[in-house]
């Protein structure tokens, strides 16, 4: 016999009420001094035993009445063994939810918990009757409905359970209960049971229960049973994070970082942390962790030679029961020369007169890759995806196609730097709507140098180049443009007269700079000043540094299309298990909706397959394997907890083919109540019987005794 509302069994405490009343009544016995116990003893001998038996019987009946009421409220059901005696079985709708989150990959006694959970789910299916419906879901971060509609075909359910694969996602238990609620709401019949096969991690139960276990849940009548594969608490540690201090790395340069290792178990941990980059082990550190503690292990290594744009690294400890969290994947963007396209508005005449001449010289200084210089007219037909930055030097206006191209380029994360000049007119620039400021006009300045102020010292463009100790030099300008800044535009550098010098704004993932000085000598000798080359190279470098963003993801998250990837070419996506998929060219919101496994996801073109590398790691909340206490679970949902296959089989044997017993218990309670009332009435009558008899006092009834009152004659004689 099992109870569908076990919480009501707390009402059995009410049994104390009649017992306490009984004992209290006994304690209220008073002491009475009485003339003699002679007659009382005889009366006691006649009544005490029967009275005691009657009182005990009365107490028993009252306790039984309360117990039956409470038991009926707890909705007991009878197991199959005796079900046929009470009118047969009640059909059931059973929802099987198998947790396949990362923690279920934990090995206990050589078997993963997921394998144990699947065996338990199959045992439940084996116990089902032909008329029982069954639905199956795999419960990761997003429940996967394998048998969404409850079916009578148990063979299909078996196949679906067997097909559940281990995942590396985070558990979302609230979603399991929501889905189960939806399944049974579709008009299923009979008893409704949810078997949730899970390790019941405490962290996974940390959700707000109110929206989940709401009125609809109560109406669903679902009786949840949490089936745990075991009741062990296996030791587990994990590398929870790796942080590289530099945004990118180059071969042979030192790389510093910090790896965090956490001990989730109740035993101390001694292990060795190993850092690998590519195929090479770059660092190895011993770790010694107290139970429940975490430590940050700093390491420094020389970056090995890696092919491609990304260095793939792994921080790992020795394997334990849950190997999935022993490795932490990280990807470091390898520094690459910025590829810059210079579009110049003025190309006629001597090279020095061309508006992009000085830009080309400044960008080529100290790098192996020279910038590509084109006429602004050719922007209409030049693909921009390969360039990290596009410099527009005195470009008066742009064609529609070039504007669209630049817009898309910015949306894919590109960088545009605009240098005005004599050709620039307010009308022409007004068409370039990606610019963060509108040119109002150009003003002349008296000869001399104009000092500049750093408005945003912390901006990445300026942070490592100029500061309070190394101020931006004064500029020999003779002309300045007057600009009206857009709402989102900021002036990073400002002339001493208040006119902005470097204007910056973000355009989606892309960035736009306006340098309020011509790239040629039309507005002054800025190209010849010592500030020109570092500023231009900073903009170019800044444009290439952004490629490391968004590369670290967790399992279950989406993989975005980063600026490193061309939008107009088909893309190849290579998963950690080596499988590849092709994504057609064109706009796409994400590369992949849901990263299912940890490891490296490589995206690129057929020519260069690893333009973007994502390091995907499992959410480390899954590493805390400690199960929730049954009492704590009861506060969330009144669920029954069963541990291990044997216990489950026992439980199933008891609960299988159940018959509701509460109507019978209610009837029995009624009968007990009636019996108690009769007995109490009988006792009351017995108690009042003595009141009706009275002992007569006063006159002696001698005549009745036949004895004369007059003295006998014999006594009168002397």
């Amino acid at each position, binding site marked *: 016999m099992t109870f569908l509302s076990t919480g009501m069994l707390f009402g059995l405490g009410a049994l104390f009420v009649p017992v306490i009343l009984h004992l209290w009544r006994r304690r209220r016995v*008073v*002491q*009475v*001094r*009485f003339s003699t116990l002679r007659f009382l003893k005889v009366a*006691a001998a006649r009544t005490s035993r029967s009275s005691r038996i009657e009182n005990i019987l009365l107490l028993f009946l009252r306790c039984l009445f309360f117990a039956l009421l409470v038991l009926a409220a707890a909705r007991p059901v009878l197991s199959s063994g005796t079900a046929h005696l009470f009118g047969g079985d009640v059909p059931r709708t059973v929802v099987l939810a198998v947790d396949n989150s990362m923690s279920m990959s934990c090995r206990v006694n050589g078997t993963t918990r997921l394998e144990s959970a699947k065996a338990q789910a199959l045992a439940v299916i084996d116990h089902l009757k032909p008329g029982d419906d069954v639905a199956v879901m795999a419960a990761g971060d997003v429940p996967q409905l394998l048998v969404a509609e409850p079916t009578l075909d148990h063979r299909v359910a078996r196949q679906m359970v067997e097909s559940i694969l281990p995942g590396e996602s985070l558990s979302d238990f609230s979603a399991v209960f929501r889905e189960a609620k939806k399944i049974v709401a579709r008009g299923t019949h009979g008893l409704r049971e949810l078997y949730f096969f899970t390790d019941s991690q405490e962290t996974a139960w940390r959700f707000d229960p109110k929206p989940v276990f709401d009125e609809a849940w109560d109406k669903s009548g679902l009786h949840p049973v949490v089936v745990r594969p075991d009741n062990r608490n296996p030791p587990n540690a994990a590398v929870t994070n790796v942080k590289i201090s530099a945004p990118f790395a180059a071969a042979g340069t030192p790389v510093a970082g910090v790896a965090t290792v956490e001990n989730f178990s109740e035993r101390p941990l001694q292990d060795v942390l190993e850092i690998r980059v590519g195929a090479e082990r770059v660092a190895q550190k011993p770790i010694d962790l107290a139970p429940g503690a975490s430590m940050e292990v700093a390491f420094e290594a020389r970056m090995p030679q890696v092919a491609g744009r990304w260095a793939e690294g792994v921080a790992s400890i020795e394997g334990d029961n849950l190997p999935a969290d022993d490795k932490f994947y990280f990807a470091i963007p390898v520094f690459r020369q910025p590829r810059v396209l210079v579009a110049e508005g003025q190309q006629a005449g001597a090279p020095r007169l061309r508006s992009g001449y000085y830009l080309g010289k400044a960008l080529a200084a100290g790098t192996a890759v020279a910038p590509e210089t084109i006429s602004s007219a050719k922007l209409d037909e030049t693909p921009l995806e390969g360039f990290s930055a596009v410099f527009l030097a005195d470009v008066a206006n742009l064609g529609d196609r070039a504007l669209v191209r630049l817009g898309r380029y910015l949306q894919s994360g590109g960088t545009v730097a605009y240098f005005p000049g004599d050709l620039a007119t307010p009308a022409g620039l007004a068409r370039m709507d990606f610019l963060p400021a509108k040119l109002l006009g150009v003003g002349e300045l008296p000869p001399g140098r104009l000092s500049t102020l750093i408005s945003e010292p912390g901006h990445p463009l300026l942070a490592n180049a100029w500061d309070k100790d190394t101020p931006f030099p004064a500029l020999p300008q003779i002309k300045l443009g007057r600009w009206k800044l857009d709402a989102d535009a900021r002036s990073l550098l400002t002339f001493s007269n208040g006119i902005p010098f470097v204007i910056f704004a973000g355009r989606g993932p892309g960035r736009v700079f306006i340098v309020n000085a011509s790239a040629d000598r039309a507005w002054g000798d800025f190209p010849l000043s010592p500030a020109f080359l570092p500023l231009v190279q900073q903009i170019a470098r800044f444009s290439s540094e952004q490629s490391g963003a968004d590369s670290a993801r967790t399992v279950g998250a989406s993989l975005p299309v980063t600026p490193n990837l061309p939008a107009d070419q088909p893309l190849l996506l290579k998963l950690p298990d080596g499988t590849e998929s092709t994504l057609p060219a064109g706009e796409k919101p994400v590369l992949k909706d849901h990263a299912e496994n940890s490891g490296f996801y490589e995206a690129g073109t057929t020519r260069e397959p690893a333009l973007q590398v994502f390091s995907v790691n499992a959410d480390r909340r899954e590493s805390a394997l400690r199960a929730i206490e049954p009492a704590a679970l009861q506060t969330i949902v009144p669920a029954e907890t069963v541990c291990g296959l044997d216990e489950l089989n026992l439980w199933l044997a008891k609960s299988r083919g159940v018959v509701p017993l509460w109507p019978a218990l209610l009837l029995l309670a009624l009968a007990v109540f009636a019996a108690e009332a009769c007995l109490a009435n009988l006792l009351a009558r017995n108690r009042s019987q*003595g009141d009706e008899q009275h002992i007569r006092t006063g006159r002696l009834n001698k005549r009745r005794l036949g004895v004369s009152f007059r*003295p006998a004659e014999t006594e*009168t004689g002397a």
Partner: protein
Amino acid sequence: MAGISDLLTPEAMRKLETLVLRSRYVVEGFRAGMHASPLKGASVEFADHRQYVKGDNLRNLDWKVFGRTERYYVKRFEEETSLRTHVVIDGSGSMAYGSDGRFSKYDYACRIAAALGYIVSRQQDALGLTIFDEEIRSHVPARSGSHHLRHFIELLAAHRPERPTNTGRSLHALAEMVSRRGLIVLLSDLFDNSEAVFRAIAHFRKKMHDVILLQVLDPCELDLSLDRVAEFIDMETGEKLEIDPALARLSYKQELQKAIDGCREKCAVLNVDYRLVSTAESFEDFVAQYLTERRRMSA
């Protein structure tokens, strides 16, 4: 309880003034009185004849009999004498019981004894007192006079009922002490060995005493009118017994009734005047009613 005024109020005395306590049998008084004596003497009440012997007073010769039979017979007359009344009170621990603020049975018995003593004194009869428990505690031989009545009442008041009882032994002892025929008024709850008690009463009867037995009981003893389960403590032995009075009431009453009936039957056999009296009744009313009834039935 201190003096005569506590036991007998003037109002009670007024009620008792007209009453008379007479013996149903002949008694052996020590002076002339209103009660029948076994001796023949001078009175107007003819008794019988006997043959004349030398020395008989010729005044008593019945000449009419001589005229008819020519034989000498003398007339004999009933002698009337005073009454010796012995009030015997059970002063054992059980008599100390009194429920709901009523008199204890002993107090009640004392009041009846005082009332009877007052009546007896007014008749110029002799009054004796015996208080007993397991043995005789106080004994005053029968005397008459108002001073004696005061002493009688002081003795009643002085006694404290607290010891166990042995009625049979005490009455036997008393029966040996009281030699002349008289009236024995026994006031007791009779919570003792019934056989022994009635053997002792038979002893009195054998000695030709007129015996009045007044069994004094508390109303609570008669109907066991307690509502709650209680632990009863025997006032004489200290023995304890927990019982639900409501449940035991019927059996208790049956047992008590049986005991009372047994007393009645034995009293009837021994020709003992028996009364069961509840302390709930007014003692002067009881005495008045009893003596009136006794007089009527003796007539």
